[in-house]
């Protein structure tokens, strides 16, 4: 009845992710063999000295975990958002959720110290809270602005996102004028995105949030499929549409905000990855959600490895790389959807 469950696709993505992860742990200023990488995890018996172990476990592994986590979070958030807006061009970064989160994060970094906030809540906790609040505010605003009679016109949604992105950009620019040198370096990080900042402590806070938000969405694949028929139609099929939209939006904001708190603004992952998966496996959310999470993790792992190794000893901010890849693809999508006007 359904297209054959793309278990092959899921398995292929998982294998590719493991291979990419091992490659990411091998490559860098000091190149290590696969055997040594495996030995660091107690697999095999290749000789591994303390220095090499430290490179793998203390330097490269947290960064790899961050890439996997952020990639999975952003891609699944994109797929979910496209489902609830019933629109393949919805994406947390395009509609301003990420920008709202980044503005909140910037505010906390620059002013949190003045306001004494950081004395009450330490920064690693304060950041995800702030980004969640900022992201949620932006998401609700876009939803209010763009939705009319249960339908979200693409153009209104993208324009609302454009305005939100501009406002957040101006806010971040304003804050950067009054920021100290130290805070300024952090701001550059927010604007371009980087996987080089977070360590185990930040990961310990972010990972459970992202994993829970991904797990929360997985059982709702069929309901999201029904929602694609239309909100009234989904209601006729017994779906509690308002509850589904509310839950999905919170999950999208949780995943996006945590990603922004951990790695700054990394755009287009949520747009690009679900689109590629749909081309391969169709729009069924039961497969789209897990496949997007895996493919997003794979994409960011590969992109980060390329960004580190390609420009060594410097590195290209990951957000610039995803924009370089995603921008042209987004344009192509726009042109294509104009040609098939009925598909939008």
């Amino acid at each position, binding site marked *: 009845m359904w*297209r054959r469950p793309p278990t092959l696709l899921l398995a292929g993505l998982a294998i590719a992710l493991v291979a990419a992860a091992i490659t990411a742990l091998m490559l860098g200023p000091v190149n290590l063999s696969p055997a040594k990488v495996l030995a660091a995890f107690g697999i095999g018996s290749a000789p591994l000295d303390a220095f090499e172990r430290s490179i793998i476990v203390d330097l490269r592994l947290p960064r790899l975990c961050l890439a996997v986590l952020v990639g999975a979070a952003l891609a699944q958030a994109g797929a979910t958002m496209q489902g609830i807006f019933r629109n393949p061009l919805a994406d947390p970064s395009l509609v301003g959720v990420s920008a709202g989160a980044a503005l909140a994060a910037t505010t906390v970094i620059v002013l949190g110290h003045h306001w004494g906030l950081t004395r009450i809540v330490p920064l690693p906790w304060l950041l995800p809270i702030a980004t969640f609040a900022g992201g949620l505010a932006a998401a609700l605003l876009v939803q209010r602005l763009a939705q009319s009679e249960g*339908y979200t016109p693409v153009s209104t949604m993208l324009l609302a996102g454009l305005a939100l992105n501009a406002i957040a950009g101006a806010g971040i620019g304003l804050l950067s004028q009054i920021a100290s040198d130290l805070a300024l370096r952090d701001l550059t990080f927010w604007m371009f995105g980087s996987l080089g900042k977070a360590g185990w402590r930040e990961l310990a806070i972010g990972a459970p949030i992202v994993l829970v938000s991904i797990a929360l969405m997985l059982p709702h694949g069929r309901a999201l499929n029904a929602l694609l*028929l239309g909100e009234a139609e989904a209601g006729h*099929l*017994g779906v509690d549409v308002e509850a589904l939209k509310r839950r999905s939006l919170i999950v999208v904001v949780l995943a996006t905000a945590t990603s922004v708190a951990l790695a700054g603004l990394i755009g287009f992952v949520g747009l690009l990855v679900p689109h590629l998966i749909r081309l391969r496996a169709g729009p069924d959310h039961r497969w789209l959600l897990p496949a997007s999470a895996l493919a997003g993790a794979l994409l960011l792992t590969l992109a980060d490895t390329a960004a580190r190794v390609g420009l060594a000893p410097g590195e290209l901010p990951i957000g610039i790389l995803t924009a370089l890849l995603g921008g042209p693809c987004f344009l192509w999508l726009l042109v294509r959807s104009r040609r098939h006007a009925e598909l939008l």
Partner: protein
Amino acid sequence: MLRALDVSYRAGDAQLLQEASLTIAPGRVHALLGPNGAGKSTLLKLLAGDLRPHSGAVALDARPLGEWSAGERARRRAVLPQHDSLRFGFTAEEVVALGRLPCVPSSREAEIVRDALEAAGVAQLRHRIYPTLSGGERARVQFARVMAQLWEAAGDRGRFLLLDEPTASLDLAHQHDCLRAARRFAESGAGVLVVLHDPNLALAYSDDATVLRAGRVLASGPTAATLTGEILSSAYGIEVAIHQLPGVARPLIWTRS
């Protein structure tokens, strides 16, 4: 029975329905007619549970519709909307399978989807991508979807299919195919409400008919007794005559201009 009793509904200042009543009985096709803006879609939405009446009541098996959970309702009634807005690339078969969401999973799922596609006359489209189909083809796939939702007789409890202008985007032959399928569906025990514009189609395929005008029920009852020249003339404000041609089983409705 799915029944609306003396329902009234307003939107803003506009009184869209005024004390309208309608009963859909299992095993029968009920046609709902009336000029544009008479309140047909509003009455259908009240019966579907999308809207709540400001006064009067809608009941499924004598129990107010509001007391049924969304899931229970979805297993007992299906709604074919006037417009579709699906833009994602499901295959026609997958769209029909979406109709099975509220149903208790059975081992016959694939068979039911195939039968529903067959019944709507779109079996040959099952692997086509939905947004690439023509308007009429999409309407028939949606028709298959709502039939699939109610495919298995829920014991001897009634199932109700509400069709909002199912023939609107169909060519002449497919209009008849669609209503023939609705008839067959009713013969399997379901109650079918169908909003129609063409009284000839109503005469040919419905058991009962209700004519609305300006939010009120103008006439209701067995089709042949309800769709008279007099009532239709009064409903649409143009002169309508009914002719019985020799050798044709059903009377034909003409407009005189």
